[in-house]
């Protein structure tokens, strides 16, 4: 039977499960699902009392996990559609923040913004730029008669609008139904997935506006009735060991994070901090949301083996918001499966040809498992025909986890979903039934688990004095098995010294988007050109960048991340 979010909450309330909230200073508070259900019914009643009707969208901007989940579930039990948005600290400066989220609020036709007392005065301005907004309120200040029971909802009604990134040029809000959430969460936690049970203990520092944090950890815990410990993302970023200490203290069994988080632990957890850690309870160390590097996971396993970490705990995963969250998970409890192939054959012939790891140009790709039961996955060529074993093509997915479509964008939806198959925009191959990811057709740039669209970066750079407006291209320099590097190619005009221009472009991008780009390439007039579409231009420049044939007007200045 398909459960709605509210039904999952009702069921969870009858069990012993709970969220344990750890604030930025490390103070902990546990809230049983039964108590959370009461708070949700109270908040849901307050929202209805403010005139919201079932089916209305409410946007959530709440950095703290306890408030976020109360508001999310309050909206759910009232039959409203919660739409999580990134909070300001995650998106450049505050001025830029409003520009980033206003288009999202408009695309979702949000009727209200639920936030915190601290952010409410700042978000009030959205009532001007998003006319559908009727009120902006702090979740903790909303009062009204509590609902006696959840508003019944149809399985095919929207449960959640999930934005894949804060894009000003093309906000992509994924519409997920209760049936989508139920299918994906059951697949993740089911016997063919992680085998979740009420005695599992989840630990997460992932932001809850991010689908892996919200669906993969928080909602998974609700649907499976287990305890999940939620830390502040910033507590992790400041001290990565905080994550591992929470796992130690709560005997955590399940935790997921993007590759960069494992890398941060390898680099930043000091030897002295290993004292007191015990990671022997950690059964599922999931890794997804950005390209996975075998070397990072191996280094993590080596560093933390002395405190009980087992390399067999790694569960590499592949997924996308358009497929609710996860598309494949490697089976828990096995060794990391690494396929070593020739880079040259992969690029030139689209073949994954095995080679030894010391061969020149050897690439080590991590196996991400196979499709879930009741779901399907195939790899196709440019004409959409399935390809054979070890042939690279685009990955398509189908089944009950595929989204209903994009918000207010039927054209974009039709481009992605055809005959029930959803194009992922990612390139990969199958070998021995296992999926390996090795590139991307879509233009998204993924850095530290966050998605950026080239159009948004280009828009920011176009306004920098000394840049030839319209002659800017942004793309991800990708290498299979390596993290993305964001590159911006810029035609210059006037006499601004190159290093000043690069610094200014870097600063504007950081402020507007929070992204630190890998390289800003200054090129002579005519390099970027305007004749072709943005997409073709980016593809061409990306190839020339990779081949090293771009003529530069100023020598390369490397990003901080690269020089180590």
């Amino acid at each position, binding site marked *: 039977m398909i459960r709605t979010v509210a039904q999952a909450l009702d069921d969870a309330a009858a069990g012993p499960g709970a969220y344990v909230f750890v604030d930025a200073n490390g103070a902990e508070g546990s809230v049983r699902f039964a108590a959370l259900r009461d708070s949700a019914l109270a908040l849901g009643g307050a929202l209805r009392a403010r005139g919201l009707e079932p089916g209305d969208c409410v946007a959530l901007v709440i950095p703290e996990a306890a408030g976020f989940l109360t508001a999310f579930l309050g909206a759910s039990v009232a039959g409203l559609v919660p739409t999580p948005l990134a909070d300001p600290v995650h998106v450049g400066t505050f001025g830029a923040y409003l520009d980033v989220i206003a288009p999202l609020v408009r695309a979702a036709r949000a009727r209200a913004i639920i936030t915190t007392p601290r952010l409410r005065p700042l978000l009030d301005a959205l009532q001007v730029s998003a006319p559908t907004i009727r009120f902006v309120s702090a979740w903790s200040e909303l009062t009204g008669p509590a609902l006696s029971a959840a508003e019944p909802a149809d399985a095919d009604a929207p449960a959640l609008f999930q934005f894949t990134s804060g894009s000003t040029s093309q906000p992509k809000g994924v519409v997920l139904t209760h049936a989508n959430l139920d299918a994906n969460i059951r697949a993740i936690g089911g016997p063919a997935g992680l085998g979740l049970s009420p005695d599992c203990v989840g630990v997460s520092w992932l932001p809850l506006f991010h689908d892996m944090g919200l669906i993969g950890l928080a909602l998974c815990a609700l649907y499976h009735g287990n305890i999940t410990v939620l830390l502040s993302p*910033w507590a992790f*970023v*400041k001290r990565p060991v905080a994550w591992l200490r929470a796992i130690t203290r709560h005997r955590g069994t399940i935790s997921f994070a993007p590759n960069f988080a494992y890398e941060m632990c390898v680099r*930043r957890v000091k030897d002295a901090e290993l004292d007191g850690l015990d990671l022997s309870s950690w059964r599922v160390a999931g890794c997804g949301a950005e390209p996975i590097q075998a070397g990072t996971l191996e280094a993590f396993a080596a560093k933390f083996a002395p405190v009980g970490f087992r390399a067999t705990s790694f569960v590499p995963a592949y997924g996308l918001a358009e497929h609710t969250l996860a598309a494949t998970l490697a089976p828990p409890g096995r060794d990391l499966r690494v396929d070593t192939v020739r880079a040259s054959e992969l690029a030139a012939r689209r073949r994954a040809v095995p080679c030894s790891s010391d061969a020149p140009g050897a690439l080590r790709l991590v196996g991400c498992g196979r499709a879930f039961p009741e779901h399907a996955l195939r790899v196709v060529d440019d004409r959409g025909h399935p390809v054979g074993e070890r042939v690279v093509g685009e990955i398509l997915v189908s089944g009950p986890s595929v989204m209903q479509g994009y918000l207010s964008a039927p054209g974009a939806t039709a481009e992605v979903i055809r005959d029930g198959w959803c194009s992922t925009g990612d390139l990969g191959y199958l070998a021995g039934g296992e999926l390996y990811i090795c590139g991307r057709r879509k233009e998204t740039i993924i850095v530290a688990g966050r998605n950026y669209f080239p159009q948004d970066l280009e828009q920011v750079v176009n306004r920098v004095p000394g840049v030839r407006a319209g002659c800017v291209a942004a793309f991800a320099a990708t290498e299979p098995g390596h993290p993305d590097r964001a590159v911006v190619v810029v035609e210059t005009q006037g006499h601004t010294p190159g290093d000043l221009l690069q*610094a200014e472009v870097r*600063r504007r991008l950081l402020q507007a988007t*929070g992204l*630190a780009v890998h390289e800003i390439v200054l090129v002579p007039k005519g390099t970027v050109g305007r004749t072709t579409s943005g997409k073709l231009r980016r593809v061409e420049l990306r190839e020339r960048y990779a081949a090293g044939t771009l003529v530069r007007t100023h020598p390369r200045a490397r990003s*901080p991340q690269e020089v*180590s």
Partner: protein
Amino acid sequence: MTTRGLSLEAEIIAIVKRVSRRPVEPTAASDLELDLGFDSLLRYELIAELEDRFDVSIPLNDIETIRTVAQVREHLDALIKVGSG
């Protein structure tokens, strides 16, 4: 005081340089973002490193307001003074 002040600044600069992993020599006037390319991840890493070295606790809310190396120093100076009574 002057000697101690200078050495505090030198130490901060050394830590900033190490965290930035960039072949640029920071100065007191360096802007973390503009000159040294600090994004939010690096900024938090810097704060953790400074806390460890100087045995202080820097509130999370202050992290976003510090812009330059000189401001890092002012912040630390205040915290160290409070700490030593």
